[in-house]
C-alpha cells in the first residue's frame, strides 16, 4: 500500500478537478458528497498505510516514494517524492481525518448556499496542498504545499466576497503570509547555498557535519521560523488569523485551527535536526511562542465574537506549540498539534453549529440560554472547553502539561508566562461557554419580538455527528501521550515513542518527577481558578459582556486588541503607502514614464519611418532581398580580399 501513497494527494486533487469543472452542474449537495467522499477515501488510504507502517520495525518506518523528477538543475534535484515516516503519518492522519469530518459537516453547514460547489472545490484543493506540505520529501514540495494552502486560505477566507470585510480579510491573510513566505524562501535559498540539496534525508545527513550554533544554521533556521510565524500566526505576523474568521466557519475549523496554521510547527519538527543545531533560534522561538500564548490569551478575554475568541485562543495555543518546540520538545509540540486539532476543530464546529442555529449571529452578547435548544452542540462544546482549559484526563491537559513541563526544564521564567496563559485560557473559554449556553436568551431574532427565538433548533445529523466524533477524540486523544509518571496502564507515551525516529527531541529533563507532579497540580489549579472567575462572573452573577462603548482604560485597549492593527496600519501600511506615493509622483511619473514613453515615441517614429518601406509591392521586397544578398557577397569579398 505504501507505494500507492500518491493516492492520498491524488484523490483530493481529483475531487478538486471534478468539482471545479462540473460542480455547477452537480449542485451543492452532490458536490459536497463528492468532496467528502474523496477526502474520506484519502483518509482510508492513509489509515491503511499507517497500519502497514505499524507492522514494520521501528528503524524501517521511514519510506520515501519517488514519483517523478520535477526540477533537475545543476546540483539541485527536486523530485516529486513523498516521505512516509511517523511524523508525516501523524499529520496526514490528522489532516485527512479531521478534514473529512469537516467536509461532512460542511454539507450541512453550507446547505442553501448556491455557490457551494466552489467552496467544496477549494476545500479539496486545500486538502491536496496540505497533504503535499505534509508528505513532501523535500523543501520544495513542502513549499509548494505551503503556498498552496496559503492560496486556498485566501480563497476560502474571501468566500463571502460580496462583503468588503471578507475580501479585505482574505487580502490581509495573503499579504501577511507573503511576508512570512519571503523569510521561508530565503531560508530555502540559504539551504540550497549551504547544503546544495533540499531533500530532508540528505539534509539530515549533511547537517551532522555542522556544529551547534553555527551562524549560517542560525540564519537558516531563523528565516524558516519567520515563514512559520506567518503561517502559524505568531507575533508579529499573527494579525491575519482573527480577521480570517470572515470565512465560513468550517473553513476556520479546518484551515485556521486544525491543519494549516499548525504547518509551521510541523515544518519545525520536520527540520528538527537543523533546529537542534541552533540554540539561539530555539530560544527566540520559545520566547515568541510564550509571548504569543499570553498576548493572544489576554485579547481573547474581552472578545465578544464567538469566532474571534476561538481565533485568539488558536493563536494562543499555537504559541504553546512553539513554546514547546523552542524548548526542544518537538514531539510534545506535535502532540499538542494533534490534540489541538481535535478540540479546536470541535470548538469551531460547535461555534458553527451555534451560528447556524442563530442564523449567522456571532456576537455572544446576543446569545445565551442555548443549552436546552442545542443539546448536542452544548455537550460537545463543553467537552471542547474542558479539553482546552486543561481539565485532567482531557486531551488538552496531557499535551499542554507535557509542553509546560519541558518548558519548565528549559526556563522557569518562560513557564510562568505559559502558566499565566493557561489561567487566562481557562477563564475566557468558560466565559465563552457560560455566556453562550447559560443565562437568559438575549436573541433579537426576527422570529420573535420579545427574544423568544422559535427558529433556533439543533443542527442536522450530518453536522452533529462530526461534533460527536471529535468530542470523543478530544476526550480520549490525550491518552496517546500519557506522561511517564501517570502511566498506570504502562502503555508508555505512545506518540513520543512513535515519533522518536523522525524528530530530534533535545529537551532536557533536569527536575525530578515530584516537580512534574507539582507543576501538574499548579496548572490544574490555575485552570480551576480561571473557571471559578468565569463561573462567578458569568454564571452566578449572570453577567454579560459590556457593550462596546462601555469599555475604558486598559480594558478598552485590550478590547481593541492593543490597537495592534492600527499600529501596523500606521507603521507599515501608511508609511509604505506614502513612500510609494512619493516614488510614484517623483520617480515613476518623470523618470520611468519618461524612459518608457521616450522609448515608445522613438520606436513609434522609427516604425513610422519603416512603415514607408512596406509598400505591399512585391518588387520592393525583392529589392530588399537582393540588397541583402549583395551586401553579404560584398562583405565576403572584402574579407577575402
Amino acid at each position, binding site marked *: 500500500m505504501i507505494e500507492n501513497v500518491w493516492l492520498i494527494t491524488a484523490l483530493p486533487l481529483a475531487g478538486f478537478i471534478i468539482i471545479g469543472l462540473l460542480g455547477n452542474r452537480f449542485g451543492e449537495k452532490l458536490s459536497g458528497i463528492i468532496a467528502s467522499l474523496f477526502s474520506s477515501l484519502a483518509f482510508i488510504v492513509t489509515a491503511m498505510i499507517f497500519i502497514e507502517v505499524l507492522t514494520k520495525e521501528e528503524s524501517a518506518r521511514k519510506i520515501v516514494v519517488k514519483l517523478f523528477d520535477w526540477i533537475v538543475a545543476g546540483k539541485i534535484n527536486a523530485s516529486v517524492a513523498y516521505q512516509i515516516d511517523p511524523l508525516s503519518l501523524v499529520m496526514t492522519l490528522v489532516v485527512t481525518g479531521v478534514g473529512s469530518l469537516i467536509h461532512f459537516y460542511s454539507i450541512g453547514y453550507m446547505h442553501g448556499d448556491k455557490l457551494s460547489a466552489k467552496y467544496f472545490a477549494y476545500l479539496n484543493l486545500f486538502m491536496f496542498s496540505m497533504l503535499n506540505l505534509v508528505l513532501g520529501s523535500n523543501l520544495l514540495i513542502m513549499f509548494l504545499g505551503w503556498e498552496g494552502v496559503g492560496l486556498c486560505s485566501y480563497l476560502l477566507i474571501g468566500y463571502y466576497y460580496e462583503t468588503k470585510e471578507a475580501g479585505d480579510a482574505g487580502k490581509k491573510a495573503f499579504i501577511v503570509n507573503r511576508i512570512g513566505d519571503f523569510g521561508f524562501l530565503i531560508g530555502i535559498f540559504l539551504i540550497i547555498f549551504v547544503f546544495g540539496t533540499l531533500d530532508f534525508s540528505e539534509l539530515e545527513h549533511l547537517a551532522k557535519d555542522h556544529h551547534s550554533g553555527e551562524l549560517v544554521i542560525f540564519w537558516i533556521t531563523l528565516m524558516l521560523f519567520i515563514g512559520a510565524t506567518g503561517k502559524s500566526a505568531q507575533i508579529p505576523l499573527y494579525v491575519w488569523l482573527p480577521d480570517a474568521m470572515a470565512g465560513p466557519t468550517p473553513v476556520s475549523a479546518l484551515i485556521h485551527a486544525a491543519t494549516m496554521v499548525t504547518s509551521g510547527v510541523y515544518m519545525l519538527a520536520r527540520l528538527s535536526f537543523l533546529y537542534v543545531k541552533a540554540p539561539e533560534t530555539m530560544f527566540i522561538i520559545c520566547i515568541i511562542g510564550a509571548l504569543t500564548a499570553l498576548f493572544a490569551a489576554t485579547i481573547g478575554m474581552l472578545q465578544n465574537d464567538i469566532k474571534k475568541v476561538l481565533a485568539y485562543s488558536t493563536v494562543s495555543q499555537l504559541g504553546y506549540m512553539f513554546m514547546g518546540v523552542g524548548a526542544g520538545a518537538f514531539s510534545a509540540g506535535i502532540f499538542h498539534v494533534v490534540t489541538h486539532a481535535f478540540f479546536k476543530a470541535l470548538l469551531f464546529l460547535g461555534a458553527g453549529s451555534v451560528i447556524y442555529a442563530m442564523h449567522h449571529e456571532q456576537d455572544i452578547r446576543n446569545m445565551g440560554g442555548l443549552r436546552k435548544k442545542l443539546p448536542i452542540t452544548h455537550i460537545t462544546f463543553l467537552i471542547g472547553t474542558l479539553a482546552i482549559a486543561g481539565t485532567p484526563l482531557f486531551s488538552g491537559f496531557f499535551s499542554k502539561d507535557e509542553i509546560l513541563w519541558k518548558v519548565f526544564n528549559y526556563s522557569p521564567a518562560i513557564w510562568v508566562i505559559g502558566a499565566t496563559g493557561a489561567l487566562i485560557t481557562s477563564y475566557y473559554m468558560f466565559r465563552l461557554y457560560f455566556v453562550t449556553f447559560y443565562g437568559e436568551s438575549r436573541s433579537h431574532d426576527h422570529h420573535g419580538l420579545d427574544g423568544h427565538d422559535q427558529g433556533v433548533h439543533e443542527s442536522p445529523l450530518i453536522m452533529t455527528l462530526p461534533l460527536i466524533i471529535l468530542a470523543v477524540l478530544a476526550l480520549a486523544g490525550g491518552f496517546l501521550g500519557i506522561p511517564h509518571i501517570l502511566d498506570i496502564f504502562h502503555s508508555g507515551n505512545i506518540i513520543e515513542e512513535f515519533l522518536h525516529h523522525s524528530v530530534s527531541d533535545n529537551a532536557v529533563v533536569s527536575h525530578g518527577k515530584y516537580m512534574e507532579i507539582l507543576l501538574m497540580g499548579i496548572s490544574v489549579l490555575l485552570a480551576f481558578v480561571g473557571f471559578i472567575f468565569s463561573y462567578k462572573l458569568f454564571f452566578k452573577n449572570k453577567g454579560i459582556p459590556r457593550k462596546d462603548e462601555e469599555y475604558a482604560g486598559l480594558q478598552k485597549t485590550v478590547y481593541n486588541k492593543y490597537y495592534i492593527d492600527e499600529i501596523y496600519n500606521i507603521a507599515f501600511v501608511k508609511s509604505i503607502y506614502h513612500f510609494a506615493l512619493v516614488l510614484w509622483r517623483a520617480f515613476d511619473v518623470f523618470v520611468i514614464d519618461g524612459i518608457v514613453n521616450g522609448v515608445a515615441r522613438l520606436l513609434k517614429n522609427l516604425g513610422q519611418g519603416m512603415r514607408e518601406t512596406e509598400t505591399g509591392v512585391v518588387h520592393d521586397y525583392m529589392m530588399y532581398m*537582393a540588397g541583402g544578398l*549583395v551586401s553579404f557577397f*560584398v562583405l565576403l569579398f572584402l574579407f577575402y580580399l
Partner: protein
Amino acid sequence: METSSLITFIKPFVFYTFASLAVISAIMVIVSRNPLNSAVMLVLTFFSIAAVYALMGSEVIAVFQILVYAGAIMVLVIFVIMFLNLRPSNLKIQFNHIIRSGIAIVFMLIMFIATMSLLTEGVPFYMANAAKGDITQAVLESQGAFQLFSRALFTEYLLPFELTSLLLTVAIIGVVVLIRGITNTVATKKENFKTKGDGK
C-alpha cells in the same frame, strides 16, 4: 586515343557555343515584351543547359532537364499564358521604372564581379583540396551514368525519393483545391446574393 583527343579538342567549342546560347536566350527571356516569346526563349535556355550537362558527363540530368523542364513545365507555362489570353496589348511595356531597374542591374553586376573574383581563385583551390568520391569519369564510362545514378537514388536516397511522390501528390491536390475553392466561393456568393434578394 584518336577520338578522345578529338573530344578534348572540340569540347571548349561545344561549351562556349551552348553556354553563350544559354546566356543569350536567358537575356532574351527578360527583355522580350511578349511572355510567350519569353517562354519560348526559356525553352531554348533549358536545351542549352541540357547540352552543358551532357558535356559535363551527366547524361541523366540532361535527360531530366529536357523531359521535365523543357517538356513538362514549359508546356504548362505556355498553356497558362494561352489560357489567360495575355495579348501583347495587355502587356505593353512591362519594365519597372528606370531607377529601380538600374539599381537592380547594378546590384547584380556588383554581385557578379564579387562572386567571380572569389570563385576564380576559390573553385580550383577547392577542387584540388576537397575529398573526392569514387565515381570517376572512368567508372562512369564503364558502368553507365544511369545505372550509377539509379543505384544511388533507390538505395541511399530511397526515402527522399518516395517523399517526392508525396510532394507531387500534395501539389496535385493543392491545385485542385485552389481552383475548385475559388469556383465554389463564387458559386456560394451568388447563392447568398440570391437568397438575400428574394428573402426578407
